[in-house]
């Protein structure tokens, strides 16, 4: 997906992944979903996989490529089977801007969710920050 080939970057340690989403259920407001993730090199890009979350049995996987400070990728989230979203799988894409130190990325995601029982595409804020080396 990248437009140019980058140097191979390292994203060591554990990272804190947080995204904001509109709770589309009645009376819902914006909520956050948080994961602890690792980022590894894979093919021409990088893979993200969760090693912990604030909700048991919820998992997040993502792939991205880097073009300068621009991070572009896709993700898949399996929500908790026993949680509010009943094990629903969310698939989407994201684009983030990375800082010069390669320790922080911030941008937006796009993915389908429910709106009054009908699927609809939403966007929201997304953040990935190095938590510990």
């Amino acid at each position, binding site marked *: 997906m990248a437009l140019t080939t980058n140097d191979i970057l390292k994203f060591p340690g554990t990272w804190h992944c947080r995204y904001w989403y509109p709770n589309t259920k009645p009376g819902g407001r914006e909520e956050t979903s948080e994961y602890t993730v690792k980022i590894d090199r894979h093919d021409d890009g990088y893979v993200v996989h969760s090693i912990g979350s604030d909700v048991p049995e919820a998992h997040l996987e993502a792939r991205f490529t880097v073009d300068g400070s621009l991070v572009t990728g896709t993700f898949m989230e399996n929500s908790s089977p026993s949680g509010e979203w009943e094990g629903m799988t969310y698939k989407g894409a994201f684009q983030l801007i990375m800082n010069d130190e390669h320790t922080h990325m911030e941008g937006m995601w796009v*993915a*389908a969710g429910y709106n009054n029982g009908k699927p609809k*595409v939403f966007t929201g804020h997304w953040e990935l920050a190095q938590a510990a080396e």
Partner: protein
Amino acid sequence: MKLVTSSNMQVGPLSGIWRCSYYFPSNTHNGDDASSYYVRLERTQDGFVLHSLPNAQSAYIQAHCTLDANLATGVWLENTAPQGEFQGKMYSGVFQVIISDDQKHMEGRWVGIGSDHGRQKIYEGAWEITYAGEVLKDLPEL
């Protein structure tokens, strides 16, 4: 896997000419401006490729995506018109659209990089791909 759209759509060839429009916050007035192209869609094994047809402004857009039934998720790249408001700047981003049951309309949102007073920033907006007709010569100019 229980996907949000819970669809088992088999997407067809998506032939003909389509109109692809995306909306972004205007720099000159309140509300959104639209960027519209006539495009062709070509099916791939697991998705489709989108590319614009030549226009008088020499602006181009291309995209590719994968399909999960009626849900298309992908990446796009736009070369804006050299003489236009964005002076030939290149933009890129991601998008997701849901394909209607008659497979003539796709609706969703994009996310992509832009700049705000010289600072890089990620924007988002609506994205639409609608079947326009079989041949370009019968279609109104955009």
